[in-house]
C-alpha cells in the first residue's frame, strides 16, 4: 500500500530530524581510540618516572611533603604528562570529528556541539575543583578515582546531547572509579584502564558502528 510506505517514510524522517537537530553526531570514534593511546603513553611515561609507587600509590601524603622543595619538580612532571595527554586528545578529537562532519556534509560547530560541550564541562569543572581540594589536604590516593568518577558523570550528562554510546562509556568510568576507591593503591592502573583501555574499546566500537562504511581514508 503506497500510503503506508509514505507514512513510514514520514516517521523515519521525523526521528532523523529530532536526532540531528538535538544531538551532536559528528563525534568520531577514532578520536576516542587516539585519546586512549595517548593516555596509555602518558601512563607508560609515569611508570618510568615513579615506578616505586606505581602499584601501591599512597592514600595520604603529609602536607610537609606536598609543600617541600622537591615537590615542584613532581608537579611539573605531572602537569607536562597529564597536560600533554589532554592536549593531544583534544587535538585528535577536534581533527577526527571535524573530518566526520565534513564527510557527512553537516556543520561541525553548531548549537548541538556547544550544548554537548557545556554539559560535559559542568561536572568536569566540579571534579577539577574537588581534586584540587583533595590535593590541598594531601588525600592524593583519591585523586585518580575522583577523576574517573567525575569524568564518568560528565559523560553521562553529555550523552543526552550526543551519541548515546557515550552513556555506557560514562557508566563504565563511574564503576571503574568506584572500584579504584576500594583498591586505592592501584589508582594509576585504574586510571590507565579508564582513560586508556576504555577509550580505545568504546572508540573502536563507535567507529565500527557509525563510520566504517563512510568512505575510505
Amino acid at each position, binding site marked *: *500500500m503506497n500510503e*503506508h510506505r509514505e*507514512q*513510514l517514510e*514520514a*516517521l523515519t*524522517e*521525523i*526521528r532523523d*530530524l*529530532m536526532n*540531528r*537537530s*538535538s544531538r551532536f553526531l559528528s563525534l568520531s570514534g577514532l578520536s576516542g581510540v587516539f585519546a586512549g593511546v595517548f593516555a596509555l603513553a602518558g601512563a607508560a611515561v609515569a611508570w618510568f618516572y615513579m615506578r616505586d609507587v606505581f602499584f601501591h600509590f599512597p592514600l595520604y601524603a603529609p602536607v610537609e611533603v606536598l609543600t617541600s622543595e622537591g615537590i615542584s619538580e613532581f608537579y611539573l612532571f605531572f602537569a607536562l604528562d597529564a597536560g600533554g595527554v589532554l592536549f593531544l586528545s583534544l587535538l585528535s578529537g577536534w581533527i577526527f570529528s571535524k573530518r566526520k562532519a565534513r564527510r557527512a556534509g553537516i*556543520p561541525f560547530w*553548531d*548549537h548541538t556541539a556547544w550544548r554537548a560541550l557545556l554539559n560535559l564541562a559542568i561536572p568536569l569543572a566540579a571534579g577539577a575543583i574537588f581534586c584540587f581540594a583533595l590535593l590541598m589536604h594531601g588525600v592524593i590516593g583519591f585523586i585518580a578515582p575522583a577523576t574517573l568518577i567525575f569524568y564518568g558523570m560528565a559523560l553521562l550528562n553529555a550523552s543526552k546531547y550526543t551519541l548515546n554510546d557515550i552513556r555506557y562509556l560514562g557508566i563504565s568510568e563511574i564503576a571503574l572509579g568506584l572500584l579504584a576507591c576500594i583498591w586505592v593503591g592501584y589508582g594509576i592502573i585504574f586510571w590507565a584502564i579508564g582513560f586508556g583501555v576504555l577509550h580505545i574499546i568504546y572508540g573502536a566500537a563507535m567507529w565500527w558502528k557509525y563510520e566504517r562504511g563512510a568512505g575510505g581514508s
Partner: protein
Amino acid sequence: MKDYLLKLNKAFENRTRLGLMSILMVNDEVDFTQLRDLLQVTDGNLASHAAALEKAGYIQVSKQFVGKKPNTTYAVTRAGRKAFTEHLDALEKLLKSQK
C-alpha cells in the same frame, strides 16, 4: 472511517511542516537559518509553512535584532506539542493496523 484516521491532523500533512514540528519538539528554541539548513528547504517555503503553523497556534514566532541583523526564532506552543503528539500517535496506530 476509523477514529484514529480522524485524529490525523491536516495541519501537519506536509514534509516541511512535519519536519519543522519534529525539530521544535526536541529543542527549546531554533532560529530560521538552523531550521532552513536542517530541513533543506528554501526561505520562502519555510516562511510560508511556519506562518501557517503560527496561525494554527502550534508554534510561537519571535523576532528580534542581533546587532543590525533581524533574527527570527521559533518555539513550539503547548497546543502544538499536544496536537503533534496526537498526530504521531494516530500515525503509529495507522501503521500498526496495516501490518
